[in-house]
């Protein structure tokens, strides 16, 4: 505002003394004093840097905090098209790394993600930014999270996608996750909405059986392979294999597709991964009397106190399983199967330790520590291997698809691979992230663009925040069914209400991102920060007026979220 009239030109303004016209100090360009220059600079938040699906978390939390769930979801699905799924099944490393966790309690990011995913399914919000289809065609093999994500991100670039899967429905390994963790309707809901974007889905088409790699290479500009790991690893103990052996993953498939499982009195599941834990809890729910899980790994607890190798299963799910009555024998391995004829009557457990030696895990068992556990069924859940059918030419003798940094299968210009079939997979969110990254690579390849380096995200350190400006407050605790009330396959965690989720999103400290809190605007001693609200449609909330900024650095020091950086003047 100020006074409109800044007075006559300087020559006439030179008064006999005693008088000066208002606001004429603007002639004095104090910016020339500056040695350091403040910059508004978005720094990656720790949640964003660690998210396997590369979600831009502070951006969608900010929109949710402003009660704009639809725009929040649109930001979210510009990276991850399946938030209702990952909001449920991802172990959310974002919350482990959340700076708010050091202040009071981490933001319950997965609750927001899940809420937004559910809201989109309920309201039928269309996926944003879907361009018309162009001429280029790409084949995607495997309709799990990696394949769906890749197909979706190719489609967002206007590329035609043919998606092949050996099964009748999309979803991949997610389809065996029990309903108490991921309801089938949520998975099929998001998968079908992605397919509905104009992606041609070929169910029941298996690579090597119904379609060959050579055909795909001939018909499509590029191929993305995400076949997952579908083949149970062979199981035997000291060369003995019991008759009537069921593999864990097969039982989970049976439960989801047939809806019935045998009832045993006492089951021993061998393995420490999600399959072992999911199956253990499913069996308890379908009438098996006692369920024991044997693993040479440790029960996952906080990282510091872990001595051995933690179970790869999601820590939270292990805790819930124990609460439900699953008995976990950690740090044990099976020394011997006790067989009567070819029928299992028990197992011999022996103390064991899995630990790192020269960067690879080694297994040690300690004779003299054996105990016997009676059981009428032993179920291996010791991991799955890649089904090599149709991939022989690429695999050679390896058990995985070897890819270069940009996702290309080594030695192949137009064949890419991701998801569990390549090393480093395992999480749904990581599969989605790999599908996304490679879709962008394929798009660039088809457009004839050169390789673009994606810089690693270096997150804003905790010390980059000014925590004085945040108040401690209560955090959102997702509603969970008590163990006694978990008799069926209803979900254990429920989706929060709009009010609670909005309040939770507002707890985000916005690490490295602008909160639009006005601190810089209010606190600049030189009036050199200008607010842009209501002035045109500027893409930023504030601007520095470098004509007057003296470079004192106060704004950077008092910015609560570390969005201002001081750099030396040239």
């Amino acid at each position: 505002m100020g006074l409109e009239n800044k007075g006559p030109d300087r020559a006439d303004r030179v008064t006999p003394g005693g008088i000066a016209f208002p606001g004429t100090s603007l002639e004095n360009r104090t910016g020339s004093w500056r040695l350091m220059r403040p910059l508004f600079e978005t720094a990656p938040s720790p949640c964003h840097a660690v998210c396997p699906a590369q979600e831009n978390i502070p951006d969608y939390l900010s929109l949710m905090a402003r009660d704009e769930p639809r725009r929040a979801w649109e930001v979210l699905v510009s990276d991850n098209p399946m938030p209702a799924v990952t909001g449920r099944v991802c172990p959310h490393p974002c919350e482990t790394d959340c700076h708010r966790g050091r202040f009071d309690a981490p933001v319950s990011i997965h609750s927001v993600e899940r809420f937004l995913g559910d809201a989109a399914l309920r309201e039928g919000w269309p996926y944003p930014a879907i361009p018309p289809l162009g001429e280029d065609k790409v084949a995607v093999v495997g309709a799990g999270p990696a394949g769906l994500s890749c197909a979706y991100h190719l489609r967002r670039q206007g590329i035609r996608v043919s998606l092949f899967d050996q099964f009748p429905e999309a979803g991949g390994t997610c389809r065996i996750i029990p309903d108490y963790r991921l309801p089938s309707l949520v998975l099929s809901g998001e998968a079908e909405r992605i397919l509905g974007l104009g992606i041609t889905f070929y169910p029941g088409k298996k690579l090597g059986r119904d379609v060959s790699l050579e055909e795909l290479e001939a018909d499509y500009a590029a191929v993305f392979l995400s076949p997952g790991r579908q083949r149970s690893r062979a199981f035997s103990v000291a060369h003995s294999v019991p008759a009537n052996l069921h593999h864990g993953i097969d039982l989970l498939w049976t439960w989801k597709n047939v809806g019935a499982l045998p009832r045993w009195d006492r089951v021993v599941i061998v393995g420490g991964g999600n399959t072992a834990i999911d199956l253990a809890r499913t069996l308890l729910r379908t009438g098996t009397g006692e369920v024991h899980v044997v693993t040479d790994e440790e029960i996952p607890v906080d990282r510091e106190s872990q001595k051995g190798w933690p179970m790869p299963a999601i820590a939270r799910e292990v805790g819930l399983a124990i609460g439900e009555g699953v008995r976990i024998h950690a740090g044990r391995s099976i020394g011997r199967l006790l067989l009567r004829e070819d029928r299992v009557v028990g197992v011999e457990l022996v103390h064991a330790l899995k630990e790192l030696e020269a960067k690879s895990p080694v297994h040690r068992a300690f004779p003299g520590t054996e105990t016997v556990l009676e059981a009428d069924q032993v179920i291996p859940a010791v991991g799955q291997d890649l089904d090599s059918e149709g991939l022989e030419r690429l695999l050679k003798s390896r058990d995985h698809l070897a890819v270069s940094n940009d996702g290309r299968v080594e030695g192949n210009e137009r064949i890419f691979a991701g998801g569990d079939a390549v090393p480093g997979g395992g999480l749904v969110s990581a599969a989605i992230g790999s599908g996304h990254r490679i879709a962008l690579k394929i798009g660039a390849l088809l457009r004839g663009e050169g390789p673009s380096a994606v810089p690693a995200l270096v997150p804003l350190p905790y010390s980059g925040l000014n925590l004085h400006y945040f108040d401690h407050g209560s955090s959102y605790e997702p509603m969970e069914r008590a163990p006694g009330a978990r008799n069926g396959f209803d979900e254990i965690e429920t989706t929060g209400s709009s009010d609670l989720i909005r309040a939770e999103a507002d707890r985000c400290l916005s690490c490295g991102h602008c909160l639009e809190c006005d601190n810089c605007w209010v606190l600049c001693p030189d009036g050199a920060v200008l607010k842009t609200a209501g002035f045109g449609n500027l893409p930023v909330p504030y601007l520095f007026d470098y004509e007057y900024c003296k470079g004192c650095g106060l704004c950077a020091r008092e910015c609560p979220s570390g969005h201002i950086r001081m750099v030396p003047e040239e």
Partner: protein
Amino acid sequence: MASASDPGPVDLAELRAAQPRFSGLESGHGACQGCGQALAARLVLEAAGPDVIVANATGCLEIFTTPWPLSAWNVAWIHSLFENVAAVASGIEAALKIQGRNTKVLAFAGDGGTFDIGFQALSGMLERNHDVLFVCFDNEAYMNTGIQRSGSTPLGAWTTTSPAGKTRQGKRHLKKDLLTIIAAHGIPYAATASVAYPSDLRSKVRRALSTEGPSFLLLHSPCPLGWGHDSSLTIAVDRLAVESGLFPLLELARGQVIGRMAIRTVRPVREYAELQSRFGHLLADSPEAHEGLEHLQAIADANIERYGLLASGPEPRDSEGADTVRRGGTRWA
């Protein structure tokens, strides 16, 4: 990503004119980097609004805002002598009263012009019940003339006239308890404020101006040059002045304390001293330094006790909750 720092084709002069606040103190003034007083003066006028007349005693604020023939003021403003700003403001107020005008009158002075040189004029203004808000920008020494100690300089602080050496640990006298002296005049409203708590500061200005009769605001304003702290630390230093108890934020009516900003987590005086070279000698490993720092700590403790500053639990307006940020800036409403 487009650089958020590059204004591009934006007309900054137009944007400046469209700012959603009243800027009584314009950019281009010559205050040092990180000047607490420049910030404080803009915040006071932001709350007071354009319809004011300011009388300004000699001091930093007067010097850096009006290098002839320029002025940084966007309000009617007059420079008085060092000693008589309260008298000048009294005269303006009396003249406006005769003319039947509602323009508010503010008197601005530093601690030199308030605690020492202008004190008798201030006392007279309060005693004659003029409807003036007297704002003392307290930076605890004569900064404009080169950091000489004033009646407001705290115990132990180094200035050029209270040096620290073998026999003395900085200033050997206490900071004058001006607030109690003001309180003794029985005026309707008096308060202390800090630039570290701008919302609190502005609401106190509004309260003072809506109270008929004389009012007084003691406004703590760090001086990076005179206190010897980095220019970026102005707010951080003043926050510690409040959170240590050395500068309590209070409101008084007719001499009685009616409001206080409670401290949720009391910070040791040492943390405050460590940021400022004027207290550097008190951090030395000697019995004299130790005694000096403990003395300052005892003064802070006594303030907390005297004014009952400890918060029993989280309160929305205590020293930690008062400036909690809100998305979209509603904190400053």
